[in-house]
């Protein structure tokens, strides 16, 4: 699957903003952890959503603050996981 970073960014922003009213003004660079907007419910919902949409799997060791502190970082993590999951031809 070709990974479109901009599309993923838009899609994830919509997902987080729709989660509840307190996150309506989140941007790609909003620090979700420092601002207290990332709670366990949103984090787990995000992971399951990413797994369903992008077909990659996350383990608890991926729940690293640097991976989830903003939407842009989350998109980077998805790109990394997809690259790691791609079959190596060769």
């Amino acid at each position, binding site marked *: 699957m070709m990974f479109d970073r901009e599309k993923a960014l838009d899609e994830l922003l919509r997902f987080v903003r729709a989660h*509840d*009213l*307190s*996150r309506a003004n989140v941007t790609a660079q909003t620090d979700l*952890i*420092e601002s*207290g*907007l*990332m*709670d*366990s*419910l949103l*984090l*787990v*919902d995000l*992971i*399951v959503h990413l*797994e369903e949409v992008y077909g990659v799997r*996350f*383990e*608890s*060791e991926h*729940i*690293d*603050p640097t991976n*989830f*502190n903003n939407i842009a970082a989350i998109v980077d993590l998805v790109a990394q996981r997809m690259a790691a999951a791609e079959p190596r031809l060769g």
Partner: protein
Amino acid sequence: MKWPLRSRAVPNADIPLYNRFYLHASRASHADATIVWGTEIDADALQAFLRERNRQSRVVITPAHALIRATALALVQFPALNVRVVGRKIYPFRDVSVRIAFFHRRNKEIDLLLVQNADQKNLQQIAQNVWDRLLQAARGEGGRDRDLARLRRLPGFWFRQLMRFHGFLDRHFRLPILSRLDATRAGGALVNDLSFPGAPPMRSYKASRFPDESDTFNLTLGPVEQKVVAKGDGFASVGIMPLFVRADHRLIDAYQVGRLLDLVRDLLNHPERLEESLANVATPGQAKPD
């Protein structure tokens, strides 16, 4: 097969008379042994600590993980609360394990997870434990989720019979862990983190008690709100979080509840102490390290 409770009950001579008064009250007396106490913690200190830790940590640490650790440390200091009433007797738990309620995303209902030996785990280990279970639950993986699905399919009549039968045995006999579903009985303390974004200010909260009476006490953390307080010669706006305890007068009295709550509050107000070894956490009433 694991026995969560020690084999010897607390001797009657060691149970204060007033607690025994509640312990032996007949159901017809409708005696209410519930004690509730609410206080506030310094949310600014806890949030600053978590921000700092999350800059260095390999796993996201939340207020819920801090609450589990603080509760475990408090249970070590107050072993009188790390117990369970069975029949008219009080049995100590073998380990210091803490239960936490969480929203089961897949089933859209509340479920429990147990952090075993929470007193021997640091914040990162507790966080890792909790995230593992939350991810497992969200995907519907694991034995417990398969058992929950089976239990949900039981017709009302059989569900009621099963609950009554298990409840009767569990309330009257010191049972081993019988299945994956009742593995959470291995800890008598239950914590709730209700500090999620968008939660309304919490003025009072009394967590319900489970029908099987397996949760001896409950600690609930509420959402952050701003409050104006006197500071020095002036006033300042500070963030506070409510903290409620629900305890059982059969086991503990209000004085002890207050001391336990003071210790948990102190640990959350000075969260760097959550990372200290057990020996360094001051017993309430003793001088606390600066």
